């Protein structure tokens, strides 16, 4: 039971060392002894010890000196000072210098048990603290968002800026660009970070289900509502609600959510009582909401409510300089996960990855690297390992001597996709007016 704990008894008296050694040995601890401070430091250099029992009075290096050196070099090791009656002042001094506890010689075995319990409790708390601190700093970094390009630096700076505010944010970006990661980073850096982050994919839920998931329901509200259930808007209380694919929600749901954002109150389905709620809304979409407003599919007032600030995540093809970094990151990740020691991606394969258009963005790159790691037969990923990546449609058409009409269609489609179907931008790039572009879209039967 105690085998994971390692103890060192440091005392110049053999009988003390032996007594404590036998006691700890019987308690099933891993125990070693040292007859001087120097010997103890040598042992500390070689292996880890969780607890040191150190006699205060030793010839040469005193127990106090050993305590100070141990705390300086191995702060995680707990030190318990053993001292004789009459040297309580020294014990107090030792406690101030970082000792976990002290024992006055001779002591009852009970006292030693109590000290060990206390040290173990302290160690457990320290371990938990270190773990949680690590987790927290992990959350605070842009840990899972990778990229050093200027475009991504702008995104990082936006995240830092908007995290401080409580304004609703609309995150824009193609599929696979990492919209949820940006939302998580905003939440982690905000004052709400200790409250829940609740992500909901609106595109994945039918309207009626989304309504009951968001607002909750009372028993009997509809067939199958066998018990009262809190909705995500209640669960999120104080935290951040992330609505992904917000462009997919119905007009009715837009009205309901608009009311919630204005009144900060909800009513569960099948209930009449209003419940006060408090949360921050982050939304994301890959669609062009401007277009949806024009076509009448998205409410103007709701759009302005959720789009106080927007962050646009660039597609991977617009930040190709990040591809080697991302590829290496995913290579390390999947090499570790699959325990296949794949060391690198060769030059030709990397060039191909950089030139590839990545319609599925970072997610597609991640999947490609995972697949290559699993399938490769060597320690280096070569072009053969990624030949499942087909060149983008425009490139393939060029190589196939396509007709002018096909070329025009593919080019317009590519420019539209590159610009997230923003008609004004695409028309600008193509050098035509918006109405001409609309006509071309119609003529070529292009659709999002």
């Amino acid at each position, binding site marked *: *039971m105690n085998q994971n704990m390692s103890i060192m008894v440091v005392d110049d*008296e053999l*009988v*003390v060392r*032996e*007594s*404590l050694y*036998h*006691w700890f*040995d*019987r*308690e*099933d601890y891993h125990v070693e002894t040292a007859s001087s401070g120097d010997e103890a430091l040598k042992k500390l250099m070689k292996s880890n010890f969780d607890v040191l029992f150190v006699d205060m009075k030793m010839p040469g290096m005193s127990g106090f000196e050993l305590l100070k050196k141990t705390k300086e070099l191995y702060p995680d090791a707990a030190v318990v000072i*053993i001292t004789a009656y009459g040297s309580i002042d020294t014990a107090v001094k030792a406690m101030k210098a970082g000792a976990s506890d002290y024992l006055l*010689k*001779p*002591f*009852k*075995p*009970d006292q*030693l*048990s109590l000290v060990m319990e206390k040290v173990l409790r302290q160690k457990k708390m320290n371990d938990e603290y270190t773990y949680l601190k690590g987790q927290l700093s992990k959350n605070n970094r842009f840990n899972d968002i990778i990229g050093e390009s200027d475009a991504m630096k702008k995104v990082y700076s936006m995240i830092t800026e908007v995290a401080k505010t409580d304004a609703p944010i609309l995150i824009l970006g193609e599929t696979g660009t990492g919209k949820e990661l940006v939302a998580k980073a905003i939440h982690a850096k905000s004052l709400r970070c200790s409250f829940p982050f609740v992500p909901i994919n609106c595109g994945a839920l039918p309207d009626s289900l989304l309504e009951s998931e968001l607002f909750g329901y009372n028993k009997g509200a509809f067939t199958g509502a066998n018990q009262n259930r809190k909705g995500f808007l209640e669960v999120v209380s104080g935290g951040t609600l992330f609505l992904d694919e917000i462009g997919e929600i119905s007009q009715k749901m837009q009205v309901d959510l608009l009311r919630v954002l204005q009144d900060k109150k909800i009513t569960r389905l099948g209930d009449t009582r209003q419940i006060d709620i408090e949360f921050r809304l982050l939304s994301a979409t890959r669609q062009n909401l401007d277009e949806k407003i024009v076509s009448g599919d998205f409410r103007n007032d709701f759009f302005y409510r959720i789009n106080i600030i927007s962050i646009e995540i660039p597609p991977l093809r617009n930040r190709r300089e990040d591809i080697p970094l991302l590829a290496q990151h995913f290579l390390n990740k999947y090499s570790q996960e699959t325990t296949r020691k794949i060391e690198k991606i060769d030059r030709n394969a990397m060039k191909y990855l950089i030139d590839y258009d990545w319609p599925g963005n970072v997610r597609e790159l991640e999947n490609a690297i995972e697949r290559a790691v699993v399938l490769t037969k060597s320690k280096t990923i070569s072009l053969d390992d990624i030949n499942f990546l087909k060149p983008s449609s425009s490139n393939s058409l060029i190589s196939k001597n396509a007709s002018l009409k096909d070329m025009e269609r593919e080019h317009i489609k590519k420019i539209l996709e590159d610009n997230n179907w923003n008609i004004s931008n695409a028309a600008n790039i193509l050098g035509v007016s918006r109405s001409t572009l609309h006509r071309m879209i119609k003529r070529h039967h292009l659709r999002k």
Partner: protein
Amino acid sequence: MPSNGFSLGIQPIGEIDNFFLKVITGSFLGELSIKTFILPPLKSPEYAFNKRKIQYDAGLIINRMEKMKFPEYTKIIGIIDADLFIPVFSYVLGEARMKGRCAIISLFRLENNPERMAKVALHEFGHLMNLKHCQEKGCVMKFSNNVEQLDSNFSFFCEYCIDQLNYLLKK
């Protein structure tokens, strides 16, 4: 019963009531099927007496016992009716070294209770056989430093300890 000629000697040190010696013999026979032999009593160990503490040093007594020549006994448990200590602890109810040959138990703090004595003897015997302290509730190998803790333990080994002990006894 151990088949490989295992033998346990009980060594009275100073004056020990015959009743306690019978209880200890019965305990080892009943719990472990080990036949014990009562050795001729030794004199009170003045060499181990500490005048300042008014106690006997358990370590010194064990050292002396280990030097005695009783080749016919695999292990020996000494019994003394005096208060024992070891250098770091103010008192001990018994003392044994892991895998050692000799152990000592004291009747001094057991308030003339033979059942408690049997528990301490079985516990120290466990250490002589290389058993460590057990965390199983009630097991006689669970650490106890006073009569209250001792009373909360049974006078037998838990299933894990007895398995291990039987294995070690047959080795």
